[in-house]
């Protein structure tokens, strides 16, 4: 392989990863603040009320991006876990470890905002609708993944176990989701924005939502980079301490 060729695997070097993260985090922070301010202010103050739902519709500017992240962070964790199992890059494993609490928070935010919206519109905080059930299932698998890290000390064996748990969890989460979907299709409306459909929600709501999605996504990236950097430093400190103790 050409020594000068640049590839994504360069980031597998913890030192290189930290230096790139150091460089990129300030820009991402500014970008996040800009996007979220524009998106949320525009969405909350400068869009008309919905003709049926009134002002409560504005909660979608938090609900939709966090739901989008909650699902996609788990997918990201599966991908990084598989990369860890195949290529044994510690950064990949540490990224999965760092992403899990963010995903858990996003799941909780989704459930909470959904409950606040559901009370006036559906008349209930919680219903056993398939989509809501999927989020309850997601919550359980996030808790499972985090608990295996919190009970055991960091080493390669625990890394393997947590990666396997993440992959097994995804299989059973999907199975559970379709088991629940088998009997009823539920109360929750379908997706109102997608790339392949003719009719999306109207542009008045669509543009600020796009800003919010972008803002939440870069918020996730920022926190993920900071947390992964911290995990790398913790790991380095621990190995330094161990070598010092052995001497």
């Amino acid at each position: 392989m050409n020594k000068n060729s640049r590839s994504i695997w360069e980031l597998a070097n913890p030192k290189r990863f930290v230096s790139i993260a150091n460089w990129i985090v300030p820009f991402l922070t500014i970008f996040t603040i800009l996007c979220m301010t524009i998106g949320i202010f525009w969405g909350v103050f400068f869009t008309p009320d919905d003709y049926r739902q009134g002002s409560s519709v504005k909660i979608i500017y938090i609900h939709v991006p966090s739901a989008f992240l909650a699902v996609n962070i788990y997918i990201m964790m599966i991908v990084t876990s598989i990369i860890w199992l195949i290529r044994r890059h510690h950064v990949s494993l540490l990224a999965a470890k760092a992403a899990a609490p963010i995903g858990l928070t996003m799941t909780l935010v989704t459930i909470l905002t959904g409950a606040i919206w559901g009370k006036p519109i559906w008349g209930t905080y919680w219903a056993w609708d398939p989509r809501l059930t999927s989020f309850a299932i997601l919550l359980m698998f996030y808790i499972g993944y985090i608990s295996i890290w919190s009970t055991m000390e960091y080493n390669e064996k625990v890394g393997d176990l947590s990666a396997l748990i993440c992959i097994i969890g995804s299989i059973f989460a999907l199975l559970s989701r379709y088991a629940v979907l088998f009997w009823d299709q539920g109360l929750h409306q379908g997706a109102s924005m997608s790339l392949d459909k003719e009719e999306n929600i109207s542009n008045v709501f669509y543009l600020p939502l796009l800003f919010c999605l972008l803002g939440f996504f870069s918020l996730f990236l920022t926190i993920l980079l900071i947390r992964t950097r911290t995990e790398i430093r913790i790991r380095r400190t621990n190995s330094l301490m161990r070598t010092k103790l052995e001497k």
Partner: protein
Amino acid sequence: MKTSIHILKYAMSFSSAGRSLFLSTSFFIIVILTASIGMSQFGVSTNKISVTILWISLALSALLSVEIIFQTDYEDGTLDWFMLSPISLESIIVLKALTHWVITCLPMIILTPILCIPLGISFESSMWILLIMIIGTPAISFISTIGAALTLGERGSNLLLSILILPTFLPILVFGIKISLLVINSIYDYVAFFILLAFSLVCIAITPLITSMIIKVHYT
């Protein structure tokens, strides 16, 4: 050939089988009796709750007795010996799971028609529930081996085990509970019945592979 049979026979003998059988069955009986005494305060029979309690307590007592599968083998070195033996680890895991099913799930399934009386489920539907449990519970035993392998070498990790494994029982529990409820209301949904069977068979097919992967992680 003779050695293989000997190894397989050895894999099926659990040192603490009798104690575990007694404990898991007692746990099942105690949970159901406590719950039905609590429910009797309603004054009306609530089939939805009783069926759920039946399945959840079955899953919990199968899960909590999972330590017998690998724990002693891991501690006295038998598991190392299994890994060195000419028999593949997967087939040993299949045998272990089947033995676990016979020791913990089968007694509970046999007790189910009797325990349906305090729960207020009629005898005819309890026989149907028994059949559904025979179809569904092998999956519970097989999935439990994943948990047993995960918490290998860590005594007293029952809580972690429940957190990790109980959510994976969901497909089986959802279908088992729903079909049992339908049967109580005299609706026989054969499609759902076969899907439960399919879930069970899928679990039997894939979990030995996953479990052997996890056990190998402990030995690298």
